[in-house]
């Protein structure tokens, strides 16, 4: 049974999504219990893989359709012919946090999304979104990666446009769909170029056969830039604010992890597909690293400065997502820039690996605190019926738990101890300083601006006198919403207090899964 876990983790939510209309016939409560059980099952299955992969440093392979799932070339061929799922430290880390945010999103949605006859579709799309994220994080097959990217894009677009009774969400959903389809079309072009040369979609096989021709480099650009766009990197980030601000709050929290799944794609392709530290390669890693660093610095600065002047709380937070993506790109970009250098990996060992540690640590931190902040924004919009900060005031009188959750999220994103954002930002600042001090100074300055813009939200929405006349919903928060925010707060605090344990058991195995010159 345990050897089939890789495929079960994807198949269970996928089948649940298709079975859901039948379960709904039994009633709303059986449906909710069923979906909750699916989310819990996926989380438990993923957690059960942690000891093998993160502690004993194993890599799991699962060959679909083969007599023995662990045999990579079942017919004695020299190359793999079936779809292969590969779970290493990095893919497991991303999948675990995607599943946790998925569970939180479902809990929060329980009463947040009204039972208006369409909630079935909403829950089905949530499950498909989870399938898309975990699928593309687990697959070792380029075409399969494209398929899961499409599943993710379509379910995200439908969820963004879910509130069709309002004016803007359908436009935002359409925008997301168009941006995603163009990005995935370019990605498919890149996949086609690889397949035309090597006759296989298997990433490990292509990596072994790679001759770093001009076509390979064209494929690299076609695959990485659209994924960077889907991750919300500047200058291709404009869609982020338009779509994040119109989606329901729990969906926005999951959109953050969906964007990070694309970021996973950037890193996975840079290292696992195109990375080869020992061969005499013609792809200049220093150039690729600097491109990612420049994208990161631009994302950090433009994201935060645009956030500072927003009056719509969800748009403000969306621009912060762009800014935080910049930190991740900066950390991993420095790692890539010094990877396979002429110094035999000395710089990589001195600070490159640490920069990657910070970048990848920041990915999981961001999925937690950014998700939490979007959930608190959901409460703000629910209370005041608007996302306009000028029309909010005095929430701290009414919603004490939400206020505390917002403070935790805001301090974490601003990099204030003892919350998780501090740990990852400190590692990024320290390691990037060794590479280029100027980059580190920019990153710190951006952190200050981040705190400033969240002070603005705190001042606008939470402080001031209580104004009951401005409230459109004065009911107590449903337990699901409180539980969702509470889980996020807990993770932020634990990862801030024990960063070394997180690095040792989750981040280091993730880097080991990506990089070959450890």
């Amino acid at each position, binding site marked *: 049974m345990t050897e089939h876990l890789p495929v079960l983790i994807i198949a269970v939510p996928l089948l649940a999504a298709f079975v859901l209309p039948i379960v709904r016939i039994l009633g709303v409560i059986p449906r909710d219990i069923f979906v909750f059980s699916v989310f819990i099952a996926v989380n438990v299955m993923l957690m059960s893989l942690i000891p093998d992969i993160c502690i004993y440093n194993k890599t799991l392979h699962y060959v679909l359709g083969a007599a023995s799932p662990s045999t990579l070339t079942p017919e004695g061929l020299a190359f793999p012919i079936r779809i292969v799922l590969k779970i290493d430290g990095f893919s497991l880390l991303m999948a675990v946090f995607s599943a946790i945010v998925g569970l939180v999103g479902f809990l929060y949605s329980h009463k947040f999304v009204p039972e208006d006859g369409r909630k079935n579709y909403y829950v089905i799309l949530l499950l498909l979104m989870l399938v898309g994220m975990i699928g593309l994080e687990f697959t070792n097959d380029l075409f399969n990666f494209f398929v899961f990217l499409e599943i993710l894009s379509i379910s995200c677009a439908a969820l963004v446009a879910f509130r069709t009774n309002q004016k803007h969400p359908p436009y935002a959903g359409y*925008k997301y769909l*168009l*941006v995603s389809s*163009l*990005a995935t079309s*370019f990605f498919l072009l890149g996949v086609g170029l690889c397949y035309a040369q090597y006759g296989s979609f298997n990433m490990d096989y292509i990596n072994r056969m790679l001759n770093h021709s001009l076509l390979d*480099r*064209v494929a*690299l*650009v076609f695959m*990485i*830039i659209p994924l*960077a*766009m889907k991750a919300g990197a500047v*200058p*291709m980030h*404009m*869609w982020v*604010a*338009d779509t994040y601000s119109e989606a329901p709050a729990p969906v926005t929290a999951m959109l953050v992890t969906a964007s990070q799944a694309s970021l996973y794609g950037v890193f996975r392709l840079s290292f696992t597909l195109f990375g080869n530290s020992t061969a005499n390669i013609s*792809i*200049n890693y*220093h*150039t*690729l690293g*600097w*491109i990612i660093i420049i994208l990161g610095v631009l994302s950090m600065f*433009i994201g935060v*400065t*645009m956030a*500072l*002047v927003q*009056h719509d709380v969800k748009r403000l937070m969306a621009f912060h997502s762009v800014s935080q993506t910049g930190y991740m790109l900066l950390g991993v970009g420095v790692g890539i820039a010094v990877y396979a250098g002429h110094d035999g990996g000395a710089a990589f060992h001195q600070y490159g690996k*640490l920069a990657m540690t910070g970048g990848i640590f920041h990915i999981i931190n961001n999925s937690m605190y950014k998700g939490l902040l979007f959930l608190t924004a959901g409460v703000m919009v629910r209370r005041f019926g608007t996302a306009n*900060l*000028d029309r*909010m*005031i005095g929430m701290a009188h009414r919603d004490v738990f939400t206020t505390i959750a917002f403070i935790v999220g805001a301090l974490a994103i601003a990099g204030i*101890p*003892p919350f998780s954002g501090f*740990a990852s930002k*400190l*590692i990024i600042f*320290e390691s990037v300083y060794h590479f280029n001090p100027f980059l580190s100074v920019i990153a710190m300055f951006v952190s200050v601006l981040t705190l*400033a813009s969240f*002070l*603005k*939200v705190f*001042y*606008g929405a939470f402080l001031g*006198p209580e*104004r009951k006349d401005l409230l459109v919903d004065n009911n107590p928060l449903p337990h699901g919403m409180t539980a969702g925010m509470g889980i996020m707060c807990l993770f932020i605090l634990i990862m*801030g*207090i*024990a*960063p*070394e*344990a997180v*690095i*040792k058991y989750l981040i280091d195995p993730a880097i080991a899964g990506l990089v070959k010159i450890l």
Partner: protein
Amino acid sequence: MDFLNRFIAQNTGILWYPSLLLGILIILVIVLTVWGRLFFRRDYNKNSPQVKPFNSGNLEEIDYNIASSNLFWGFRKALESYYAVMISSHSGDLNDYLKWLAISIAICFLLIAGGLL
């Protein structure tokens, strides 16, 4: 000691003891609470005007709340020309957005595939 080491960020190269800092914070909060209970004023009354904000003698405090959009006005004014460009580029028009995808791909072609760097 191995257990304690898990709570110390050794990777950063500087001393960062989150658990120790948290312990100090908890002790400080306890000390402040006890101190406050023992020595702070006891004539606090939530239902009296003493809890209302004081805005230079004006009694209608609600009207004098500064709107969020007015915060950091100076920052925005100082960077007016930067924001003029930035806000116009976030037009909401998909054509503009996709133009940047094409430009980014073109630049990366020149840098990576074209061998400019």
